[in-house]
């Protein structure tokens, strides 16, 4: 077992722009699912699979990551931080970790939730064969959003990133790789993509012809938070998998479903209802008679008395005023010029945004950080950071 890689390079330098405004101040790996950052699930899976050294590649808003994970002691791993000063793609990010790698190693995406078996199986596949690399693949019902892979005889045959037209298979790159140090030469030979970045799948494509890439089929839980509405769905799935934990101060008459995660310092007021699939972060406060269902409430946020909040993300320190209504349900949401129809998203209230009393947020409303909605206003669509909306 001594030659089995126990070092993992974890990629956590990206910004995750599609999750704006949640990623305007925090990197995507620090977006919380069931009150724990995405990256924590990745580090835990690596640790459970026997990884003891982690080179964490950080960049965008890296202080949040460093402060949370420290030296990794709480996860039984030793973490070194590798700073990717310029974001020049995932292959470039891996290359930054070269000085910390000695022998075969794993590469994990810092924002995909996988189980330990994915990590262990990929490592073993590389160690037990003589391929240049191994990579986990899984099935997806929307393969075109990811790297589509075709597999022949246990080896990767083709890999096409986000195909424009039709996907040749439902099998996608799960974002878990094992490499030998030879990969660093392959990275140096990798050409920049159209937007000038060096991407790991392009490096993998080179390795298909230079020694072969073992495809490791993975059928376990795999969760990606690409879009804002994914956060609600993935939270639901993770609570379903791991069970809820309801701590915090619950006033008399407060009803909190077991399938919730409530931080010990959160509080729920009299007769408030907190429905299944909801998470309440540290210091979050739900006022009396409020209803919160299938929502993610970040730390320090407040939902005031009588508000109804469904299918909603309430950012850190945000305030949803008394009797405000986020009625929930499906909507068509535009992200970076692309329309997504029929997604279930009641709304997003950015960090430190303030939604006034008796306001109404139409499904799919996205309020930026520090945005202010005046009392009684009705809003829909996307409101940028810091903008104030008054009742007109």
């Amino acid at each position, binding site marked *: 077992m001594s030659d089995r890689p126990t070092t993992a390079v974890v990629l956590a330098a990206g910004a995750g722009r599609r999750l704006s405004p949640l990623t305007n*101040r925090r990197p995507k790996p620090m977006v919380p699912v069931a009150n724990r950052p995405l990256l924590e699930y990745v580090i835990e899976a690596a640790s459970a699979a026997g990884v003891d050294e982690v080179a*964490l590649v*950080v960049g965008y*808003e*890296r*202080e949040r990551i*460093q*402060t949370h*994970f*420290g*030296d990794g*002691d709480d996860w039984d791993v030793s*973490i*070194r*931080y590798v*700073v990717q000063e310029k974001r020049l793609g995932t292959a470039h990010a891996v290359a930054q970790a070269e000085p910390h790698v000695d022998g075969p190693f794993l590469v994990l995406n810092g924002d995909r939730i996988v189980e330990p078996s994915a990590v262990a199986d990929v490592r073993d596949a590389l160690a037990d064969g003589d391929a240049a690399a191994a990579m986990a693949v899984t099935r997806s019902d929307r393969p075109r959003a990811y790297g589509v892979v075709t597999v022949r005889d246990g080896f990767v045959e083709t890999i096409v990133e986000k195909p424009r037209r039709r996907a040749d298979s439902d099998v996608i790159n799960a974002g878990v790789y094992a490499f030998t140090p030879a990969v660093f030469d392959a990275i140096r030979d990798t050409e920049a993509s159209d937007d000038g970045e060096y991407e790991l799948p392009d490096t993998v494509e080179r390795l298909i012809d230079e020694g072969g890439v073992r495809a490791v089929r993975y059928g376990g839980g795999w969760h990606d938070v690409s879009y804002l509405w994914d956060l609600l769905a993935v939270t639901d799935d993770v609570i379903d998998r791991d069970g809820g934990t309801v701590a915090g*101060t619950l*006033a008399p008459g407060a009803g909190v479903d077991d399938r919730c995660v409530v931080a*010990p*310092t959160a*509080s729920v*007021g009299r007769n408030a209802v907190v429905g299944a699939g909801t998470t309440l972060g*540290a*210091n979050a*406060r739900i006022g009396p008679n409020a209803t919160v269902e299938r929502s993610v409430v970040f*730390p*320090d946020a407040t939902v005031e008395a009588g508000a109804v909040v469904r299918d909603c993300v309430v950012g*850190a*320190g945000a305030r949803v005023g008394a009797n405000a209504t986020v009625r929930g349900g499906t909507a068509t949401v535009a992200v970076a010029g692309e329309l997504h129809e029929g997604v279930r998203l009641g709304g997003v209230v950015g*960090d*430190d945004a303030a939604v006034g009393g008796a306001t109404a947020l139409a499904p799919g409303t996205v309020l930026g950080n520090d945005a202010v909605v005046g009392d009684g206003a009705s809003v829909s669509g996307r409101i940028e950071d810091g903008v*104030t909306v008054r009742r007109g």
Partner: protein
Amino acid sequence: MCGIIGYVGGRPALPILSAGLSNLEYRGYDSAGVALTDDALSVYKKSGEVSELQGILPESTDHTRGIGHTRWSTHGPPTDENAHPHTDCTGRVAVVHNGIIENYDALREELADHEFTSDTDTEVVPHLIEAELDAGAEPRAAVEAAVDRLEGTYAVVVTIAGVDELYATRRDSPLVVGHGDDGTFLASDVTAFLEHTRDVTYIEDGDFAVIGDDGLTLYRDGEAIDPPVERLEYEADAAEKSGYDHYMLKEIHEQPRALRQTISGRIDADAGTADIDVDLPAEYVDSIEEIQVVACGTSNYAGRYAAELLESVVDVRTTVEVASEYEFDGGRDPWRTLVVAVTQSGETADTLSAIRRAKRAGARTLAVTNTLGSTIVRETDDSVFIRAGPEIGVAATKTFASQVATLTLLAVHVGRARGSLSYGRARELLESVRKLPNAVQAVLDREDRVREVAREYADSDAFFFVGRKLGYPVALEGALKLKEISYDHAEGFAAGELKHGPLALVTEETPVLALLTDGSRPHETLNNVKEVQARGAPVIGATGTDGDGEASLGDGYVDVDLPVPETGALEPLVANVYWQLFAYHVADEKGRPIDRPRNLAKSVTVE
């Protein structure tokens, strides 16, 4: 102020002592040394940081016991000779010491026939032991007899060639024993050996500790007693830099987390109560005429912040004293005076001495500290922990925030018990406390802007920090941070005082950093901002918003506007994070050794 370490056990002593000294370096770093013991002593000493010493240490040795020391000079300059351990004439006895031996002149005269090689007070100790040994005393008796002669403050550890045991004792300087699986450790602070064990025994004043192959034997008043063993919760590696360039920056960024720990489980905003787990009976709190806060440096400024809150919001007469200036006097009634000591380490000698004066006078004492098991906790009637986690950077940052938050909770507790703080006002204050972690995070999110500003103004002639009321202690603290780590001339003033003198110092080359937030009378301070702008000084404002929460108070008046999230009376505390980042980036721009500023040490255990 120094760091001590000792080890006896089954493993090579040298790497343990060497790593322990590195961990203790925050206590002093102008010279260091180790003594390794078997049938003879091998002593290595070097001026400079611990790394200098490590450069002259042998690769490895077979010794399994020894002592080490990192020094912060009080008597004699930092030279190789003045570095500890100190030895006797024969080279049989080696001693490390933290503290000050006040009667060393007299002792030195008495030891006239001994040959002294340093300027230190410490060197009398090995010579006293040598004299006792020469007179036929057994090693332990010799050390006890020598220590009996000492006046002043000390923690000493002694090793003698050919003797299997180390001897240690203390008076007013910290000393803690660690019980490992494969040996026993002794140190000024648990951080020295936390990677080896968390089972510890704190040595009390006057205790005599013998560390041998069988572990610790503890003598109190001449009788062997069962040493009380505690298990620590601190984590050894919590003290690493986690990808930050300096501990100070790491700790600045840890503030939201530290504040969460500080307030966790302590506030019930709906009930308007703060539970700080301290036994102050309501009748006693009601009877208090005055609260006196004693503290030094940054802790003193945290105390001033609290005093302003206690007086203006809670209606309790409160005074703040610099601990080294403190006397219990002025005709105060000790039965009606609560003396609150604020100290991060719980070992600050000036603060300990102030608290002893208060106790002698008969006043009740309360400690607000970050360190479980510290001397102040054992010496005061009650204590409250600020729960900020270990702080390594010499310049205090997160502990200031946690101190003020803790003291705010104390103020609410006192105000509610006395009935002088209304339910509504208590709720409001607690709501501000609850918002603190997130508000501080919002400031940290603007670090890039602060870095730009720091770069732009780094080369100024001097820096003046101004604020009123709750903003005044923050002005003092802001200036102190800059002095400590960038070595720039910086002063904090009550904004209204500028025109009574300091305005003469203001030029185009002296930026003024102004607090314009809730709790700091921003509209009045704006007048002072105009005064300095008229003299061409650039103004950097940490500004809140006006009444309806929209326009910045600094709009149109300040050159740089750093927004402070709404947190009521705690806005100045949030704004302070800007001043921390400013000081850090100015110092970083100048390449200063930020975690180890010249002439300073983390916790000052000499008066």
